[in-house]
């Protein structure tokens, strides 16, 4: 087939890659080729995938996510006409619409809203709220803040451009300020991550000993290292 089936365009929402019809393996190869030629130009960008009526499996989405990641781009949204594909995308922690602040949660009745105060940073308009347990193997990748109402289990991963707030036990891997923002925060009711990264800093959990008193903690970068502080009313 000679006509271009893959179309990449840049928008204020990041890159949008349109995928046309045809067999998946061929399309993937074509996309890989296109990225090879232009990767340095797109590097570091976030990508929304527009797939039309095509149905994608979790595996296929993961493949394409990995392909983009090899070129240092991150997949953050999948725009699909098929419900199944949208569900797969949601389960991988991806958005399904371009509109920001759309919680990647498929239980609409009780969608939490975020009250903002006066000094909201632009990123704050771009937070996602996930109201479920993030389980091993599940990754949430988002350019803004990530709020999880539930646990983040060992083996799960959150990569956020902004802050990460976990209303539950945080035991997986977290990277806040993934764009290099050392000012990002991570807070959790139980802060016991496998690995904690803020901006360019990495810290491992001090150990997995059982603590009698569970105190919410907040982690941030101070004097070039990550410190965790108990949350207390002053």
């Amino acid at each position, binding site marked *: 087939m000679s006509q271009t089936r893959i179309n990449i365009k840049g928008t204020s929402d990041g890159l949008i890659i349109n995928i046309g019809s045809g067999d998946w393996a061929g399309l993937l190869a074509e996309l890989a080729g296109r990225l090879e030629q232009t990767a340095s130009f797109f590097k570091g960008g976030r990508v929304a995938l527009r797939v039309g009526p095509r149905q994608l499996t979790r595996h296929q989405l993961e493949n394409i996510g990995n392909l983009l990641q090899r070129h240092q781009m991150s997949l953050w949204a999948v725009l699909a006409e098929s419900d199944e594909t949208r*569900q797969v995308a949601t389960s991988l922690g991806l958005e399904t619409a371009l509109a920001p602040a759309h919680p990647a949660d498929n239980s609409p009745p009780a969608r939490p809203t975020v009250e903002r105060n006066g000094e909201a940073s632009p990123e704050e308009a771009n937070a996602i709220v996930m109201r*479920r*347990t993030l*389980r091993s*193997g599940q990754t949430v990748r988002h350019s803004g803040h990530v709020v999880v109402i539930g*646990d983040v*289990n*060992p*083996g799960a991963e959150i990569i956020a451009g902004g802050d990460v707030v976990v209303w539950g036990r945080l035991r997986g891997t977290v990277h806040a300020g993934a764009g290099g923002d050392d000012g990002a925060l991570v807070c959790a009711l139980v802060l016991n991550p496998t690995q904690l990264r803020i901006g360019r800093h990495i810290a491992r959990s001090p150990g997995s000993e059982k603590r009698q008193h569970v105190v919410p903690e907040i982690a941030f970068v101070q004097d070039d290292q990550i410190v965790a502080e108990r949350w207390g009313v002053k």
Partner: protein
Amino acid sequence: MSAIIITITSGKGGVGKTTATANISAALAMQGKRVVAIDADIGLRNLDVVMGLENRIVYDLVHVVEGACRPRQAMIKDKRLTGLYLIPAAQSRDKSAVSPQDMIDVCEKLRPDFDFIFIDSPAGIEQGFKNAIAPADQVLIITTPEVSAVRDADRIIGLIEADEKGPARLIINRLRPDMIQRGDMLDTTDVIEVLAIDLLGVVPDDESIIVATNRGVPAVMENNSQAGQAFRNIAGRLLGQDIPLMEMEAPSSWLRRFSRLVRRT
């Protein structure tokens, strides 16, 4: 009759999927239910061995899928328990011989004739797992109280949720009360805290399982097997009976045994 299709899976291998499938199926048959157990572990079949029906295999699941025989011809009738049947896996093929749609078709053909259809899933999250999950109405996750098994179970629960098969229920296998008392093993609460799904039962580590498995007699048929009792309880709960979790304590002092007796009355 319209069967409930239940898939038993774990992610990690060797935690007791096949043992659980054989025992729960047998326990339900003992309660007078019509049950068929399907071994979906194509290429590594062993449910037939555990159920002691290996020497009677003529047709297998792949034959059914390929239309070489009818489902009824591949069903091996257990001679000890009326109402218990097995559809064995093929040994000479691999997982790609069957598709998720094939599994759905086979199960739908069997559904009118049974109360329960159990599917013994292979380990892993690949094709074989997808085949096993496809027809399921309910999913039982089996894990042992080990960090690695719990981690894999967590991954599987995530996949099942994504597949909208949930909510899955949990069986914790091979619990050792003595190790828990010493603080060397995760206890039930630790496991539930991570996995956050309903607990269907806890099965103690029990030598009688190994003996029973080697002899091809499900442990639920032995009256003095603790694990067998646990599996009978699980079967009862699947039937909606309200059975409390078994008290599991390490071999203990006379006093504690006495207090346990008192509590039971």
